[in-house]
């Protein structure tokens, strides 16, 4: 509504000069002109030119998503790189996950993409299949020390478009302080079932002050759905880029969530919606309002810092009560990618190489982006890890023999899946749709999202 203040302040002026009876009237022509101007002011998009760097030195732009802790660590790593490479300047651009992808899409469209891009598996196919990412195998990046599975996750028919920044797993993080206050013992995550999960969570809610719940609701992203499907012999995606489940599978997942909600194991529908929008530092787990919550393993240290208590990393519950059936997998937490239109591919590759293989970078970044895929760096930084990081590394190690098959990479369009899951989760929790209807509709929408 850009025109309101202007016309109103003009109006204010004429109101201040008393003109009663002066008969200065708004004429139709004036209204027409003003209306036309407003109509024309509709939907304009600006364009931006790429900034050019100064003489001699090369300036690279590096964008990532993440919280305060990551920003500090990453900027520290940048400083070390710049000290080693005085002719390369790295300009950081960072923000929250929620705005990151809109911004990146716009920048890429405007031919103004950052040179180094922190990429996620959900979007990497989208960008690489459309030629927006550089094939890093053509540049000097040492991949010999990298974990093979992690390295393969960044490969596609478009080449090596992403170097895994870390290894991750889906987890349930528990806040022992909340358990203690409620007088509920922590579960044994090597043999707990979903029924145990429900029982423990409802017990915590019951014995805690109002507003504190045993667990955060799942259903706000695809990680927990992925685990659930794998435990039921399905998968999120198939290797040929289709959905790997039926509407009834996702309906069952929601039916259990509804059951959790009815037993007050998880917050009310309204609180679940509000929690979705909260950044990591203000999440229910960080503020001590949830006993347990669904997070990626690399987020544990940041959450521990935000919550101020000693968190425990748990495996997902299973149907059978054996952690061998948990269906977890190693995920590339995020990728280092480069824009295919970067003017300085060599320097960009040099920086990515530094991030992936340099011990100094490892000593700074530690386990913030997951466990280091480079075995040499991983060994070298072991002694530097903070207690929170050690927990993450241990957990990743612990589940090594229980992992299921590596899941198929998310196809093009997978970036929209999370939003669809979220939307139908709230439809179910607010009882606007039955779980069957939600399952069917969500399945349809997801199918068309990844097939277009």
């Amino acid at each position, binding site marked *: *509504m850009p*025109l*309101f*203040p202007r*016309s*109103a302040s003009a*109006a*204010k002026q*004429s*109101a201040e000069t*008393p*003109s009663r*009876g002066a*008969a*200065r*009237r*708004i*004429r139709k*022509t*004036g*209204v*027409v*002109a*003003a*209306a036309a101007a*407003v*109509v*024309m*002011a*509709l*939907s*304009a*998009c*600006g*364009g931006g030119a790429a900034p050019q760097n100064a003489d001699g030195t090369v300036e690279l732009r590096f964008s990532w998503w993440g919280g305060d802790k990551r920003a500090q660590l990453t900027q520290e790593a940048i400083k070390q790189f710049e000290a080693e490479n005085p002719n390369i300047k790295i300009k950081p651009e960072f923000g929250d996950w*929620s*705005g990151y*992808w*809109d911004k990146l*899409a716009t920048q890429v*469209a405007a031919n103004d993409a950052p040179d180094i891009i922190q990429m996620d598996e959900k979007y990497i196919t989208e*960008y690489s299949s*459309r*030629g927006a990412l550089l094939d890093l195998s053509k540049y000097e990046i040492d991949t010999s020390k990298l974990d093979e599975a992690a390295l393969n996750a960044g490969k596609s028919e478009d080449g090596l478009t992403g170097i895994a920044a870390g290894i991750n797993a889906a987890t349930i993080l528990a806040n022992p302080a909340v358990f203690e206050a409620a007088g509920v013992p922590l579960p044994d995550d090597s043999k707990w079932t979903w029924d145990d999960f429900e029982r423990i969570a409802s017990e915590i809610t019951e014995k805690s002050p109002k507003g504190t719940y045993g667990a955060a609701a799942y259903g706000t992203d695809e990680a927990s759905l992925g685990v659930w499907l794998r435990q039921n012999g399905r998968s999120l995606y198939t290797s040929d880029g289709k959905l790997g489940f039926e509407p009834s599978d996702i309906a069952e997942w929601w039916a259990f969530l509804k059951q959790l909600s009815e037993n007050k194991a998880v917050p*009310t*529908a*309204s*609180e679940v*919606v*509000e929690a*979705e*929008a909260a950044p990591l530092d203000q999440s229910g787990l960080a503020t001590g309002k949830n006993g347990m919550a669904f997070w990626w393993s690399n987020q544990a240290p940041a959450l521990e810092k935000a919550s101020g208590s000693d968190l425990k990393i748990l495996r997902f519950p299973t149907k059978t009560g054996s952690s061998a059936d948990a269906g977890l997998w190693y995920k590339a937490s995020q990728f280092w990618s480069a824009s295919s239109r970067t003017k300085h591919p060599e320097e960009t590759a040099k920086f990515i190489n530094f991030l992936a293989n340099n011990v100094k970078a490892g000593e700074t970044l530690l386990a913030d982006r997951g466990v280091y895929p480079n075995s040499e760096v991983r060994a070298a930084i072991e002694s530097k890890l903070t207690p929170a990081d050690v927990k993450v590394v241990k957990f990743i190690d612990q589940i090594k023999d229980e992992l299921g098959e590596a899941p198929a990479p998310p196809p093009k369009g997978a*970036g929209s899946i999370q*939003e669809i899951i*979220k*939307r139908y989760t*709230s*439809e179910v929790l*607010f009882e*606007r749709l039955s779980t069957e209807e939600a399952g069917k509709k969500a399945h349809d929408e997801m199918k068309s999202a990844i097939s277009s």
Partner: protein
Amino acid sequence: MSAISELSSISRRKGKLSAEEKKANGRDNKAAYIFLLPWLVGLVAITIGPMIMSLYLSFTDYNLLQPPEWVGLDNFTRMLTDARLHNSLGVTFTYVLVGVPLQLAVALLIALVLDKGLRGLPFYRSVFYLPSLLGGSVAVAILWKQIFGTTGLVNQVLAMFGIQGPGWISDPSTALGSIILLHVWTFGAPMIIFLAGLRQIPVMYYEAAKVDGATTLQQFWRITMPMLSPILFFNLVLQIIGSFQSFTQAFIVSGGNGGPSDSTMFFTLYLYQKGFGQFDMGYASAMAWFLLVIIGVFTAINFIASKYWVFYDD
């Protein structure tokens, strides 16, 4: 309104002009165009240009990363069967048809009170105008989110009376209402315009009415409303156009996803999601043009209807 009065005085002189007057006018016009230039450059470079581009894009499949591909009317036919788009239209129409009349009613009411020659009028005028300056801003939308949250200020007050309030902005049945309330709260801009209009109504009409024994209510309906109708019309046109395009409040309050359950999915928000979130810029461009048509139609209806209720007394 000075610019508009200016325009009207120009149009009023359309009659016969002497040669000398024409010459003087030409000089005036040149000066006017020079003053207009910065705006004109802006209009062409950042409004008309992109508009033409988006018109072209609306006939293409454009994913932002690769060159657009011509698909004819596909985007427009897709709109016919897009259930989420239909829902977003419903949300937007509700917002406009409920929010605009409510906001104008509040604005008029406050303007009438302030027009009664209150002491410290400039102060009150500024205070009431303040929300208009802030209302579209991100900060206020965030504040709104806090006030209307499940444990926000509103529910804390309700709790004092033993009422358990819903999560106003997180419950699909009340979320849109909360955003409409935010819109109504920004009544300052139309209020200022109403106030200016009220001051232009000659006092003698009221004096004459009083002599004839008209009640305050009669004076309002027989004098104030007809005399104010051009102003009301002006406000109505502006507010309807503006409200159709509103985006920020819904974007911030819902965290960008139009939730919960698409209950605050404004047309503009859906457009934004399609274009920037789902790499469907061709479709988003088509939506933008569809919105332009909707606004055009509403504005046209407004002008046609105005013949029957707007009163120009000179």
